[in-house]
């Protein structure tokens, strides 16, 4: 005699093999709050299936909820929902008032849309929210809360409310909110410091900066100011170029596919590393100078600013992606752009300032000229090659 008590576990062993049990979205409500000065406006979208389960909205019990049935119980819906949401502005409880109800259709069914508003006596600086909708019926219910500023932009604060974490606090910034320049500067610095490809490109250009290619091989630069001048030319050219393209991309004037940009960045690093084997020559005599002048391309190529400039144009598009991730509004781009750029420059300069004294001090040694420079360049070349393959062909084999 087969025990029926086993049927349930049997059914679940059966299902393990193909679909996850959560083949459907679990009960989720979406709450968007807009805070402006003393008013909180809210839009709360609640799954109708769960409302019906709690309130019995289907008057004729036919398994289908019509608009008429829902409209007849609007007051109950509002009372039920708002009783399970408590809002406190700076410690003072607010009384939300339902203003309107609509419906919407989500990817997993129908939702009741409850619009409400609450007034505070003073301008709101901090909003505390305690949520307990459906937690007494369904432990998997989640409330997704999003707070937007009056310009419709999300303040970036969001919360997932669950039976374990059912309250959250939002800090509301004042209406005359200045866009934070230091924050964008920090973001720029962070981006360049974690942008290994950009840093390696600079490194490839700077490794030979403290040397020059004499007629019989690499020679150390005579003076620090000379080396510094070279370095500054490289960095400034790179900076000007990527600022230009960053601005072009930020204002959406030029749009390039990211795969192309990323692959081109990898190529640029490889070329920069390769160039170290060619080296640059300092014309020693008038005859040399004349010869160099005739070979204009050679001259251009030998100049310290050409390669950083042209490749910097590409790197700028690479930065644009990161700036884009910040999701800024087109009209408010000036300050973020300046700040971000400034951050990138400061980050670069910090790296250069760290690198240059060491390189200058070691430039005379054989270790630098015959080991660090060639091996470093080979390493960068290989890495760039690997990145190129990864980015162009969407594979991944490098650990970073």
């Amino acid at each position, binding site marked *: 005699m087969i025990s029926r008590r086993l*049927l349930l*576990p049997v059914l679940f*062993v059966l299902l393990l*093999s193909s679909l996850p049990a959560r083949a459907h979205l*679990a009960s989720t409500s979406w709450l968007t709050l807009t805070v402006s000065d003393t008013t909180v406006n809210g839009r709360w979208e609640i799954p109708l299936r769960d409302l019906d389960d709690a309130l019995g909205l289907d008057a004729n019990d036919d398994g*289908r909820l019509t608009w008429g049935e829902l409209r007849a119980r609007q007051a109950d819906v509002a009372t039920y929902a708002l009783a399970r949401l408590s809002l406190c502005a700076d410690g003072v409880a607010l009384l939300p008032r339902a203003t309107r109800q609509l419906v*919407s259709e989500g990817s997993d069914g129908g939702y009741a849309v409850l619009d409400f508003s609450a007034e505070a006596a003073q301008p709101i600086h901090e909003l505390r929210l305690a949520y307990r909708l459906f937690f007494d019926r369904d432990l998997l219910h989640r409330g997704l809360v999003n707070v937007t500023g009056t310009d419709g932009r999300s303040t970036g604060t969001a919360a*997932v409310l669950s039976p374990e974490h059912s309250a959250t606090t939002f800090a509301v910034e004042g209406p005359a909110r200045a866009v934070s320049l230091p924050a964008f500067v920090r973001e720029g610095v962070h981006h360049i410091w974690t942008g290994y490809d950009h840093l390696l490109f600079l490194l490839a250009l700077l490794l030979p900066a403290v040397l020059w290619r004499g007629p019989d091989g690499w020679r150390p630069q005579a003076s620090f100011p000379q080396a510094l001048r070279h370095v500054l030319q490289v960095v400034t050219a790179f900076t000007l170029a990527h600022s230009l393209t960053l601005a072009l991309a930020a204002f*959406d004037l030029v749009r390039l596919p990211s795969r192309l940009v990323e692959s081109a960045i990898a190529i640029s690093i490889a070329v920069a590393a390769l160039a170290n084997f060619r080296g640059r020559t300092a014309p020693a005599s008038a005859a040399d100078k004349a010869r160099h002048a005739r070979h204009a391309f050679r001259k251009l190529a030998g100049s310290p600013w050409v390669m950083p400039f042209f490749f910097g144009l590409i790197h700028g598009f690479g930065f644009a992606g990161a700036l884009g991730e910040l999701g800024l509004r087109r009209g408010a781009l000036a300050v973020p752009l300046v700040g971000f750029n400034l951050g990138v420059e400061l980050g670069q300069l910090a790296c250069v300032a760290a690198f240059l004294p060491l390189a200058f001090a070691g430039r005379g040694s054989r270790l630098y000229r015959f080991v660090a420079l060639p091996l470093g360049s080979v390493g960068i070349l290989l890495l760039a090659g690997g990145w190129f393959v990864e980015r162009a062909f969407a594979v991944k084999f490098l650990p970073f």
Partner: protein
Amino acid sequence: MTKPFSQTRLPTFSAGEKTASGADSTNGLAAAVRRSQTVAPTRLSRSLQPHAGVPCSRRKRFGLQSIAGRLVAFSLAAIGLTVADTAFIPVDDFQVVAQLHPSGLSAADRELRSLRESLALRPGDLDLAVNVSRRLINRARREADPRYLGQAERALAPWWTNGTPPVEVLVLRATIRQSLHDFDTALADLDAALAREAGNAAARLTKAGVHIVRGEYDQARRSAAALWRLSDQLTAATLAASVASLTGDAERSDKLLEEILRRNAAAPAEIRAWSHTQLAESAARRGRPAAAERHFLAALSLMPGDPYLLGSYADFLVDSARAPEVLKLLQDFERVDGLLLRRTEAKAVISNKSSLTRDIKILSDRFAAQHARGERVHMREEARFRLHLCHEPVAALALAKENWRVQKEPADARLLLECARATHDTETEAMVLAWVAANRLEDIHLQPRFSASAR
């Protein structure tokens, strides 16, 4: 009446349109109210990569910087994107705004409702709570809707707050947790139950099931062995065959199971369906399509419309180059994510472009909503989505690897292998094949490629 789904693009520089609370529809119009959809993440962090809500977006950087970062970004971006961007006031009172019971209210549904009402009045009644919980869990499985699992868990909540819960409650909660892929909690509950009642067949069965999913075949075998004396022959044989067919003993155990199945034709439909499914999947793995077809159809006749069976059968059909049949099979199951995924994959395989983009968008929204909730349960399905429909093998590989950490079924191995081959990750490919060899798993889809080096 389905409204158009969110049309939002990736939050970019043009983000931040004003919330349109002015232009609403009135009772005289069915105009859609446009809601601000652009939830621009302003958290200043490079690790955020928002691309939720856009089907198969391009990632800036290949390679996963941080799964947590991605998920937070998903949550920020998905909020507001996933629910439709058009809230409206219907014109007609008879317009259906929600399908509460897909096939109408049955007697069982009404009974369940009255039982739940009684439970609300007497939450401490153990028998009532267990009864309600069981029915809710069954409903969750039938409709593939996890909200009933949440309700079932809530019904059992009083016994979690005061001291040690009874064994029945432990086993039920383990069933709930396991179906939510929370295997660690499930095993803890099951072990606690078995410590108190070593002869609890349901606990042994569930425990064996969990071990099988996690690829812990030795432990599964031990639990399965115990079932011979705790339950009936058919259940024990099916469980034993489940383990044996994954550890190199498929032929013998399948023959034995077929024999026992023949002799137990009067067993409950659910158990026979399980036996047929086991035989079907084993046959499919061993490359015996005729036998697999026979058993799948037998299982489906015993449990028609069961979403899980349908998913398994659909996978078999696609593997047997019978993708067009999948469209017919799954056409009424759009609300079940896993089945929508399979239907869309089948469409892509036979290059049926009709509503392909729309389906991909729906799936993308649903995954985004899961992420917004902070859940990572659907990794296998999402990896399949990213690989087959979005053509993002690198993202798919990351998901498949994460999935592998949680569960190790043949389907998970197959997915991981596919992703590894798509991204030329030979290390992962070798790891999967080594695992297959170590367990002596016979599966025609998990074979080493002889021309691997040529690639």
